[in-house]
């Protein structure tokens, strides 16, 4: 319990140090981006894929910023021993630092976890019309989490399972760990 409260406190400390943007501008800019994608791509799965790709490029950059700024702020980031720690970091510190909202962690197993977002800053003004009722509007998050974790050698797959824009009571992103990648000199140099 104390570990998660200190993660929230650190997340909040990092959030206060970040330059802020207007929340409405942010939501509307994202809305414009999604609208453009809807215009460019005919079918919904393609839109999801594009959003995920955009999120991925963002995620690989966000994680370095998170690690660097945490150092600077003197927030200690102990290496994550278990996936649960990673989940807490992403939810309490990552999401808080970049979006100002904390996510909750649920369904933690050794191979996955879920992130629950009560408020979604991206979908502030969004209503899905009938023909796009199945659109995962905030699929960007899935890409961001995948990209960020990829940089720290965790290959994951993220899917949006519950969405408030579809009528569910909360937003849920399911994160499944596929494999832990290895860095280093490679097998050729390992001692026999």
């Amino acid at each position, binding site marked *: 319990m104390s570990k998660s409260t200190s993660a929230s406190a650190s997340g909040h400390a990092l959030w206060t140090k970040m330059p802020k943007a207007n929340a409405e501008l942010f939501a509307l800019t994202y809305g414009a981006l999604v609208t453009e994608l809807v215009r460019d791509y005919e079918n919904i799965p393609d839109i999801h894929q594009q959003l995920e790709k955009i999120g991925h490029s963002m995620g690989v950059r966000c994680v*370095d*910023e998170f690690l660097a*700024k945490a*150092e600077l702020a003197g927030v200690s980031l102990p290496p*994550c021993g278990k996936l649960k720690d990673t989940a807490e970091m992403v939810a309490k510190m990552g999401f808080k630092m970049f979006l100002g909202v904390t996510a909750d962690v649920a369904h933690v197993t050794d191979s996955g976890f879920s992130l629950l977002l009560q408020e979604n800053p991206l979908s502030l003004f969004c209503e899905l019309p009938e023909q796009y009722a199945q659109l995962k509007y905030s699929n960007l998050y899935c890409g961001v989490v995948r990209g960020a974790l990829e940089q720290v*050698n965790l290959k994951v797959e993220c899917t949006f399972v519950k969405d408030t824009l579809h009528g569910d009571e909360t937003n849920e992103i399911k994160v499944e760990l596929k494999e832990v990648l290895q860095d280093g*000199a490679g097998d050729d140099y390992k001692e026999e």
Partner: protein
Amino acid sequence: IGTNEWLRIGSTFHSLHAIAAEAAPRRLPGNKNSYGADDGIEEIEAGGLVLRCFQTRTGMKFVITAEPGTPDIDYVLREIYVLYTDCALKDPFYELEMPIRCELFAQGVDALIERVEKAASIGKR
């Protein structure tokens, strides 16, 4: 020194860094040091130079060479990491793993080095 030379130096160091972890007398579990980043060359001290390497948990290495006895090299490396995330990563035209040609980043690093040198010379007096 041209870009190709830098690339050669960089890739040589990258390989040496990784091999050093393999050749080390004491191997850490998973080849990760206590900070969480990959184990490898942290510091090289030679006759007229000290080389320090800071490895981030994302596998990025920042290498700095300085005169022996320069204080605050760790601080400089961490500041450069922050500058990298703010200037290079946020530049929409910067591709990851490419040489960094961002004005803002170069200016930031120059300003940082000036600041540190000034502080060091004041300290010496």
